[in-house]
């Protein structure tokens, strides 16, 4: 896909995504747009289909009629295109038996550079993923995927289990990374995520709505205390 990334932003769009489990409609003709240089927040209650939407865009979940396009070109399944996007699932993605350095090598990432914002993590580069605490392994996975040379990153609850002081630093890293990437993030830590977002979508009853005033929108819908 020949495009001058220095001047022209890359645009990831997904639409036509409809999904139903039994009688329950999870996603109903959703349209979402992310472009490089943006952090896009995806908000919604537990079980409303946020993870399903990310997985569908990534291509790990097949949904008939789902259309994912990059710069207007059809890209399904998107994960098959090297350098396009990566996805952080809610669960542990890396095998417990490999070390952080091995995981970085497998993902073709400079482990030292990826963990540079967290000097205390450098010492754990040769520890096995299974030996790290839950919060540390989460942080390591987020950092590796953020550092990867892809145009987009889809992050499902990147702050989950990460301690507050690390969330601050991680937020700084996200701000730095968005210069070269488009980030689609879903997390229940609204107060930490909102300041990072350029665009906020709300998923409710299977429908996706862009919130022009995210703070007020979340308050009106009872997601934040007024």
């Amino acid at each position, binding site marked *: 896909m020949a495009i001058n990334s220095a001047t022209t932003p890359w645009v990831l769009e997904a639409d036509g995504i409809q999904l139903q489990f039994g009688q329950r409609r999870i996603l109903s003709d959703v349209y979402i747009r992310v472009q490089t240089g943006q952090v896009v927040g995806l908000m919604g209650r537990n079980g409303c289909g946020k993870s399903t939407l990310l997985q569908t865009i*990534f*291509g*790990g979940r097949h949904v008939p009629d789902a259309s994912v396009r990059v710069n207007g070109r059809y890209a399904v*399944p998107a*994960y*098959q*295109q*090297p350098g396009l996007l*990566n*996805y952080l*699932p809610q*669960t*542990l*993605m*890396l*095998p417990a*038996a*490999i070390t952080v350095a091995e995981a970085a090598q*497998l*993902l*073709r990432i400079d482990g030292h550079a990826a963990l540079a914002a967290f000097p205390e993590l450098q010492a754990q580069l040769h520890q096995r993923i299974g030996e790290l605490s839950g919060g540390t392994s989460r942080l390591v996975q987020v950092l590796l*995927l953020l550092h990867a040379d892809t145009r987009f990153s889809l992050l499902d609850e990147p702050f989950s289990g990460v301690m507050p002081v690390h969330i601050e630093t991680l937020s700084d890293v996200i701000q730095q990374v968005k210069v070269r990437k488009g980030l689609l993030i879903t997390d229940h830590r609204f107060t930490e995520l909102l300041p990072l977002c350029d665009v906020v979508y709300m998923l409710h009853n299977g429908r996706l709505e862009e919130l022009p005033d995210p703070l007020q929108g979340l308050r009106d819908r009872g997601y934040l205390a007024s």
Partner: protein
Amino acid sequence: MLSRRYPRALFLFYRTQFSALSLFSLLILGTSVPFGNWPLQLGVSVLLMKLVTYPVVWYLSGQMRPNQYWLYLNLHIAPWQLWAGVVLLDTGLFSGVVALLRQLVVWL
């Protein structure tokens, strides 16, 4: 086109499936004793028996570790590509073990 990381990813994935695959291999070897087929001779029926176990392992593995594929998808490798490699690798290993065991029994 397969990713250049495929051999490493396949080895990593094979390691996580090894115990279940070995269990079925041992079952095939073990059942040959009461049926009077010991030492097992490598043939079409034995290979078919081994091949039939892969969908079972695939299904059980998917049920027990539904999130195991995310890493590989991030490496641009689809689940079917991993399993194709596993089937080739494990069938080769199984065939080697069966042939070696037969040689050992005959030699002893």
